[in-house]
Protein backbone atom coordinates (compact mmCIF):
# COMPACT_ATOMS: atom_id res chain seq x y z
CA UNK A 1 0.00 0.00 0.00
CA UNK A 2 1.24 3.50 -0.76
CA UNK A 3 2.74 5.41 2.14
CA UNK A 4 1.87 8.70 0.56
CA UNK A 5 -0.24 10.46 -2.02
CA UNK A 6 0.04 13.44 -4.32
CA UNK A 7 -2.53 16.13 -4.88
CA UNK A 8 -2.38 17.97 -8.20
CA UNK A 9 -4.02 21.33 -8.99
CA UNK A 10 -4.13 20.73 -12.73
CA UNK A 11 -5.13 24.24 -13.71
CA UNK A 12 -2.02 25.74 -12.10
CA UNK A 13 0.42 23.42 -13.86
CA UNK A 14 2.69 24.74 -16.62
CA UNK A 15 4.21 21.33 -17.42
CA UNK A 16 7.77 22.31 -16.53
CA UNK A 17 8.50 18.67 -15.77
CA UNK A 18 10.40 19.21 -12.50
CA UNK A 19 8.11 16.94 -10.47
CA UNK A 20 8.23 14.16 -13.04
CA UNK A 21 12.01 14.29 -13.28
CA UNK A 22 12.88 14.56 -9.61
CA UNK A 23 10.35 12.29 -7.96
CA UNK A 24 12.65 9.69 -6.38
CA UNK A 25 10.12 6.92 -6.88
CA UNK A 26 9.13 7.83 -10.44
CA UNK A 27 5.48 8.11 -9.50
CA UNK A 28 4.62 10.80 -12.05
CA UNK A 29 4.47 11.36 -15.79
CA UNK A 30 3.01 14.15 -17.88
CA UNK A 31 -0.47 13.10 -18.86
CA UNK A 32 -1.96 13.29 -22.32
CA UNK A 33 -4.82 15.44 -21.10
CA UNK A 34 -4.76 19.23 -21.28
CA UNK A 35 -5.56 21.89 -18.75
CA UNK A 36 -7.30 25.11 -19.79
CA UNK A 37 -3.99 26.73 -20.75
CA UNK A 38 -3.04 23.85 -23.00
CA UNK A 39 -0.39 22.28 -20.77
CA UNK A 40 -0.13 18.58 -20.00
CA UNK A 41 -0.34 18.31 -16.24
CA UNK A 42 1.28 15.32 -14.50
CA UNK A 43 -0.56 12.30 -13.29
CA UNK A 44 0.39 9.56 -10.87
CA UNK A 45 1.27 6.57 -13.06
CA UNK A 46 2.65 4.53 -10.18
CA UNK A 47 0.73 5.86 -7.18
CA UNK A 48 1.51 2.79 -5.11
CA UNK A 49 5.16 3.86 -5.05
CA UNK A 50 4.45 7.29 -3.53
CA UNK A 51 6.08 7.81 -0.14
CA UNK A 52 4.58 11.23 0.46
CA UNK A 53 8.04 12.83 0.62
CA UNK A 54 6.71 16.04 -1.03
CA UNK A 55 9.81 16.59 -3.13
CA UNK A 56 7.39 17.26 -5.97
CA UNK A 57 5.82 20.01 -3.89
CA UNK A 58 9.19 21.48 -3.05
CA UNK A 59 10.17 21.60 -6.73
CA UNK A 60 6.94 22.83 -8.25
CA UNK A 61 7.36 26.49 -9.22
CA UNK A 62 3.63 26.87 -9.71
CA UNK A 63 2.45 25.40 -6.40
CA UNK A 64 0.47 22.91 -8.45
CA UNK A 65 1.39 19.67 -6.73
CA UNK A 66 2.21 18.45 -3.29
CA UNK A 67 2.66 15.11 -1.63
CA UNK A 68 1.82 14.04 1.85
CA UNK A 69 2.16 10.98 3.97
CA UNK A 70 -0.91 8.90 4.52
CA UNK A 71 -2.10 7.65 7.88
CA UNK A 72 -1.43 3.89 7.95
CA UNK A 73 -4.76 2.30 6.89
CA UNK A 74 -5.66 -0.41 4.38
CA UNK A 75 -8.36 1.80 2.85
CA UNK A 76 -6.17 4.89 2.38
CA UNK A 77 -6.84 6.73 -0.89
CA UNK A 78 -3.97 7.09 -3.30
CA UNK A 79 -3.00 9.51 -6.07
CA UNK A 80 -5.60 12.08 -6.99
CA UNK A 81 -6.00 14.88 -9.52
CA UNK A 82 -8.09 17.97 -8.85
CA UNK A 83 -9.53 20.23 -11.45
CA UNK A 84 -9.64 23.52 -9.60
Amino acid sequence: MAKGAVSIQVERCKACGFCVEFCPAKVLALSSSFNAKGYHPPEAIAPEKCSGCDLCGLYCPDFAIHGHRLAASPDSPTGDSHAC
Partner: protein
Amino acid sequence: MTAAGGLPALESNPVEPFLRMDRMPHIWCPGCGIGTTVNCFIRALLDSGADRQNLTVVSGIGCTGRVAGYLRLDSFHTTHGRAIPFATGLKLANPKLNVVVYSGDGDLTAIGGNHLIHAARRNLDLKVICVNNLIYGMTGGQTAPTTPRDVITSTAPYGTFDANFNLPHLMDAAGAVYVARWTVYHVKQLARAMAEALSKKGFSFIEVISPCPTLYQRRNGQGDGLNALQHYKQVSVVRHGAPTQEVGIGRHGEIAVGKFVDRVRPDYQELRRAHLQESLGGRYADTLHLEECECPS
Protein backbone atom coordinates in the same frame (compact mmCIF):
# COMPACT_ATOMS: atom_id res chain seq x y z
CA MET B 1 -11.59 21.21 -4.08
CA THR B 2 -13.35 17.97 -4.95
CA ALA B 3 -11.59 14.73 -5.60
CA ALA B 4 -11.94 12.84 -8.84
CA GLY B 5 -13.69 9.48 -8.78
CA GLY B 6 -15.47 10.04 -5.47
CA LEU B 7 -12.30 9.87 -3.40
CA PRO B 8 -12.15 12.20 -0.37
CA ALA B 9 -10.37 15.52 -0.96
CA LEU B 10 -6.77 15.55 0.19
CA GLU B 11 -5.27 18.19 2.39
CA SER B 12 -4.32 21.48 0.78
CA ASN B 13 -0.80 22.44 -0.15
CA PRO B 14 0.98 23.46 3.06
CA VAL B 15 2.60 26.41 1.31
CA GLU B 16 -0.73 28.09 0.58
CA PRO B 17 -1.18 29.83 3.96
CA PHE B 18 2.08 31.68 3.22
CA LEU B 19 1.03 32.80 -0.24
CA ARG B 20 -1.40 35.43 -1.39
CA MET B 21 -3.57 32.87 -3.12
CA ASP B 22 -5.86 35.70 -4.26
CA ARG B 23 -3.01 36.76 -6.55
CA MET B 24 -2.39 33.41 -8.19
CA PRO B 25 -1.36 32.48 -10.80
CA HIS B 26 1.94 34.31 -10.54
CA ILE B 27 3.71 35.93 -13.47
CA TRP B 28 6.75 33.63 -13.67
CA CYS B 29 7.38 31.64 -16.83
CA PRO B 30 7.10 27.87 -17.24
CA GLY B 31 10.28 26.36 -15.90
CA CYS B 32 11.38 29.49 -14.05
CA GLY B 33 12.99 28.54 -10.76
CA ILE B 34 11.77 31.45 -8.62
CA GLY B 35 8.62 29.64 -7.50
CA THR B 36 10.78 26.71 -6.45
CA THR B 37 12.88 28.98 -4.26
CA VAL B 38 9.67 30.26 -2.67
CA ASN B 39 8.72 26.70 -1.70
CA CYS B 40 12.15 26.30 -0.11
CA PHE B 41 11.74 29.59 1.72
CA ILE B 42 8.37 28.58 3.12
CA ARG B 43 9.79 25.22 4.14
CA ALA B 44 12.61 27.10 5.87
CA LEU B 45 10.13 29.33 7.72
CA LEU B 46 8.34 26.27 9.00
CA ASP B 47 11.47 24.31 9.87
CA SER B 48 13.27 27.16 11.58
CA GLY B 49 10.26 28.03 13.72
CA ALA B 50 10.70 31.66 12.67
CA ASP B 51 8.14 33.99 14.21
CA ARG B 52 5.90 34.70 11.25
CA GLN B 53 4.49 37.97 12.56
CA ASN B 54 7.92 39.54 12.82
CA LEU B 55 9.13 38.22 9.50
CA THR B 56 9.29 40.88 6.80
CA VAL B 57 10.35 40.44 3.21
CA VAL B 58 11.78 43.24 1.11
CA SER B 59 12.26 42.90 -2.62
CA GLY B 60 13.64 45.10 -5.35
CA ILE B 61 12.63 45.20 -8.99
CA GLY B 62 12.75 42.28 -11.37
CA CYS B 63 11.23 38.85 -11.64
CA THR B 64 12.55 37.81 -8.24
CA GLY B 65 11.45 41.19 -6.96
CA ARG B 66 7.88 40.01 -7.38
CA VAL B 67 8.35 37.46 -4.59
CA ALA B 68 7.44 40.06 -1.96
CA GLY B 69 4.05 40.53 -3.59
CA TYR B 70 3.19 36.84 -3.49
CA LEU B 71 4.18 36.08 0.09
CA ARG B 72 1.54 36.52 2.75
CA LEU B 73 3.77 38.38 5.19
CA ASP B 74 4.50 42.05 5.78
CA SER B 75 6.22 42.63 2.48
CA PHE B 76 7.69 45.53 0.57
CA HIS B 77 8.32 45.91 -3.14
CA THR B 78 10.80 48.77 -3.30
CA THR B 79 12.74 50.68 -5.95
CA HIS B 80 15.37 49.05 -8.13
CA GLY B 81 18.45 48.23 -6.12
CA ARG B 82 17.20 49.75 -2.89
CA ALA B 83 15.76 46.75 -1.09
CA ILE B 84 18.75 46.57 1.21
CA PRO B 85 18.59 50.23 2.36
CA PHE B 86 14.87 49.86 2.97
CA ALA B 87 15.47 46.65 4.89
CA THR B 88 18.15 48.44 6.90
CA GLY B 89 15.65 51.06 8.01
CA LEU B 90 13.09 48.41 9.01
CA LYS B 91 15.62 46.45 11.02
CA LEU B 92 17.25 49.39 12.78
CA ALA B 93 13.94 50.93 13.76
CA ASN B 94 12.53 47.64 15.01
CA PRO B 95 15.24 45.10 15.82
CA LYS B 96 12.61 42.47 16.67
CA LEU B 97 11.80 42.17 12.97
CA ASN B 98 13.48 39.34 11.11
CA VAL B 99 14.20 41.03 7.80
CA VAL B 100 14.73 39.07 4.60
CA VAL B 101 15.81 40.68 1.35
CA TYR B 102 14.60 38.54 -1.54
CA SER B 103 15.76 39.85 -4.88
CA GLY B 104 17.54 39.05 -8.12
CA ASP B 105 21.11 39.25 -9.31
CA GLY B 106 20.62 42.39 -11.41
CA ASP B 107 18.80 44.24 -8.66
CA LEU B 108 21.20 43.26 -5.89
CA THR B 109 24.58 43.34 -7.59
CA ALA B 110 24.33 45.97 -10.31
CA ILE B 111 22.20 48.94 -9.30
CA GLY B 112 22.10 47.63 -5.74
CA GLY B 113 25.75 46.65 -5.57
CA ASN B 114 26.90 49.52 -3.41
CA HIS B 115 24.26 48.80 -0.80
CA LEU B 116 25.06 45.10 -0.86
CA ILE B 117 28.70 45.58 0.02
CA HIS B 118 28.08 48.18 2.70
CA ALA B 119 25.42 46.11 4.40
CA ALA B 120 27.84 43.18 4.46
CA ARG B 121 30.63 45.41 5.71
CA ARG B 122 28.48 46.63 8.56
CA ASN B 123 27.25 43.12 9.24
CA LEU B 124 23.65 44.31 9.40
CA ASP B 125 21.35 41.54 10.58
CA LEU B 126 19.71 40.97 7.20
CA LYS B 127 19.16 37.73 5.30
CA VAL B 128 19.71 38.21 1.60
CA ILE B 129 18.38 35.63 -0.83
CA CYS B 130 19.86 36.41 -4.23
CA VAL B 131 18.14 34.43 -6.97
CA ASN B 132 20.76 34.45 -9.68
CA ASN B 133 19.48 33.62 -13.14
CA LEU B 134 22.57 35.21 -14.69
CA ILE B 135 20.49 37.78 -16.59
CA TYR B 136 18.00 40.63 -16.30
CA GLY B 137 14.84 38.63 -16.83
CA MET B 138 11.92 41.01 -16.38
CA THR B 139 13.16 43.57 -18.87
CA GLY B 140 13.82 41.03 -21.60
CA GLY B 141 17.17 39.36 -21.05
CA GLN B 142 19.94 41.95 -20.79
CA THR B 143 23.47 41.37 -19.53
CA ALA B 144 23.89 41.32 -15.77
CA PRO B 145 27.07 41.54 -13.70
CA THR B 146 26.61 37.83 -13.14
CA THR B 147 26.25 36.85 -16.81
CA PRO B 148 29.18 34.61 -17.75
CA ARG B 149 31.36 35.25 -20.80
CA ASP B 150 30.27 34.14 -24.26
CA VAL B 151 26.59 34.35 -23.51
CA ILE B 152 24.11 35.93 -25.92
CA THR B 153 21.91 38.54 -24.28
CA SER B 154 19.72 41.26 -25.72
CA THR B 155 22.35 43.91 -25.03
CA ALA B 156 25.23 41.64 -26.01
CA PRO B 157 23.92 40.28 -29.28
CA TYR B 158 27.38 39.07 -30.28
CA GLY B 159 28.03 37.54 -26.87
CA THR B 160 29.36 38.89 -23.58
CA PHE B 161 33.09 39.39 -23.19
CA ASP B 162 33.61 40.86 -19.76
CA ALA B 163 34.12 39.04 -16.51
CA ASN B 164 31.20 38.28 -14.23
CA PHE B 165 31.03 38.58 -10.47
CA ASN B 166 31.94 35.74 -8.20
CA LEU B 167 29.26 36.62 -5.65
CA PRO B 168 30.37 34.40 -2.76
CA HIS B 169 33.84 35.90 -3.05
CA LEU B 170 32.45 39.42 -3.10
CA MET B 171 30.30 38.78 -0.07
CA ASP B 172 33.08 37.00 1.79
CA ALA B 173 35.43 39.92 1.17
CA ALA B 174 32.80 42.47 2.16
CA GLY B 175 32.33 40.78 5.52
CA ALA B 176 29.20 38.63 5.34
CA VAL B 177 29.05 36.08 8.15
CA TYR B 178 27.11 33.45 6.20
CA VAL B 179 27.65 32.80 2.50
CA ALA B 180 26.19 29.85 0.66
CA ARG B 181 25.28 28.91 -2.88
CA TRP B 182 22.82 26.30 -4.06
CA THR B 183 20.92 25.80 -7.26
CA VAL B 184 17.22 25.33 -7.77
CA TYR B 185 17.95 21.63 -8.21
CA HIS B 186 19.16 21.46 -4.57
CA VAL B 187 15.78 22.09 -3.00
CA LYS B 188 16.39 20.38 0.33
CA GLN B 189 19.81 21.91 0.85
CA LEU B 190 18.50 25.31 -0.12
CA ALA B 191 15.64 25.10 2.37
CA ARG B 192 18.12 24.08 5.04
CA ALA B 193 20.45 26.97 4.19
CA MET B 194 17.58 29.43 4.31
CA ALA B 195 16.56 28.09 7.72
CA GLU B 196 20.13 28.48 8.96
CA ALA B 197 20.29 32.04 7.69
CA LEU B 198 16.95 32.90 9.30
CA SER B 199 18.31 31.88 12.67
CA LYS B 200 21.76 33.35 12.29
CA LYS B 201 22.61 36.84 13.47
CA GLY B 202 24.40 39.07 11.05
CA PHE B 203 24.57 39.51 7.30
CA SER B 204 23.71 36.28 5.48
CA PHE B 205 23.88 35.85 1.73
CA ILE B 206 22.47 32.89 -0.14
CA GLU B 207 23.00 32.76 -3.88
CA VAL B 208 20.52 30.51 -5.71
CA ILE B 209 21.36 29.62 -9.28
CA SER B 210 18.05 29.46 -11.12
CA PRO B 211 17.03 29.08 -14.76
CA CYS B 212 15.59 31.78 -16.97
CA PRO B 213 14.25 29.52 -19.71
CA THR B 214 12.58 32.24 -21.74
CA LEU B 215 15.64 34.44 -22.18
CA TYR B 216 18.92 33.00 -20.97
CA GLN B 217 18.31 29.36 -21.82
CA ARG B 218 16.46 29.95 -25.08
CA ARG B 219 18.95 32.43 -26.54
CA ASN B 220 21.87 30.21 -25.69
CA GLY B 221 20.64 26.85 -26.89
CA GLN B 222 20.31 25.52 -23.38
CA GLY B 223 16.84 24.08 -23.59
CA ASP B 224 14.21 24.77 -20.98
CA GLY B 225 13.98 24.98 -17.21
CA LEU B 226 14.14 21.24 -16.76
CA ASN B 227 17.26 21.02 -18.93
CA ALA B 228 18.81 23.66 -16.70
CA LEU B 229 18.06 21.70 -13.54
CA GLN B 230 19.43 18.55 -15.11
CA HIS B 231 22.53 20.52 -16.01
CA TYR B 232 22.88 21.88 -12.47
CA LYS B 233 22.59 18.35 -11.13
CA GLN B 234 25.33 17.22 -13.45
CA VAL B 235 27.88 20.00 -12.96
CA SER B 236 27.32 20.98 -9.33
CA VAL B 237 29.97 19.93 -6.87
CA VAL B 238 29.45 20.38 -3.15
CA ARG B 239 32.40 22.27 -1.77
CA HIS B 240 31.60 23.29 1.79
CA GLY B 241 34.17 25.72 3.12
CA ALA B 242 35.88 26.20 -0.24
CA PRO B 243 38.03 29.33 -0.61
CA THR B 244 35.56 31.73 -2.17
CA GLN B 245 37.95 33.00 -4.81
CA GLU B 246 37.71 29.54 -6.38
CA VAL B 247 33.93 29.36 -6.80
CA GLY B 248 33.31 31.64 -9.77
CA ILE B 249 30.84 30.48 -12.41
CA GLY B 250 31.39 30.36 -16.15
CA ARG B 251 29.10 29.43 -19.01
CA HIS B 252 30.41 25.90 -18.85
CA GLY B 253 32.18 24.04 -16.12
CA GLU B 254 31.59 23.29 -12.51
CA ILE B 255 29.12 25.08 -10.26
CA ALA B 256 30.50 24.97 -6.75
CA VAL B 257 27.69 24.76 -4.21
CA GLY B 258 27.60 24.54 -0.46
CA LYS B 259 28.20 26.69 2.55
CA PHE B 260 31.38 28.68 2.03
CA VAL B 261 31.36 31.05 4.97
CA ASP B 262 29.83 30.63 8.40
CA ARG B 263 31.51 32.79 10.99
CA VAL B 264 30.63 34.95 13.94
CA ARG B 265 31.26 38.62 14.37
CA PRO B 266 29.28 41.28 16.18
CA ASP B 267 26.50 42.72 14.08
CA TYR B 268 25.91 46.41 13.52
CA GLN B 269 23.39 46.87 16.29
CA GLU B 270 25.44 45.01 18.87
CA LEU B 271 28.43 47.15 17.99
CA ARG B 272 26.41 50.34 18.11
CA ARG B 273 24.84 49.68 21.47
CA ALA B 274 28.03 48.47 23.09
CA HIS B 275 29.95 51.44 21.82
CA LEU B 276 27.42 54.07 22.77
CA GLN B 277 26.93 52.50 26.19
CA GLU B 278 30.65 52.68 26.72
CA SER B 279 30.96 56.24 25.44
CA LEU B 280 27.90 57.69 27.13
CA GLY B 281 27.44 55.52 30.19
CA GLY B 282 24.23 56.37 31.97
CA ARG B 283 23.34 59.06 29.45
CA TYR B 284 22.79 56.54 26.68
CA ALA B 285 19.07 56.12 26.02
CA ASP B 286 18.67 52.56 24.86
CA THR B 287 15.51 52.46 22.77
CA LEU B 288 14.82 49.26 20.96
CA HIS B 289 11.64 49.86 19.00
CA LEU B 290 11.19 53.37 17.63
CA GLU B 291 7.42 53.36 17.62
CA GLU B 292 5.72 56.45 18.98
CA CYS B 293 2.05 55.77 18.66
CA GLU B 294 -0.13 53.53 20.73
CA CYS B 295 -1.13 50.96 18.22
CA PRO B 296 -3.74 48.31 18.86
CA SER B 297 -2.38 44.79 18.51
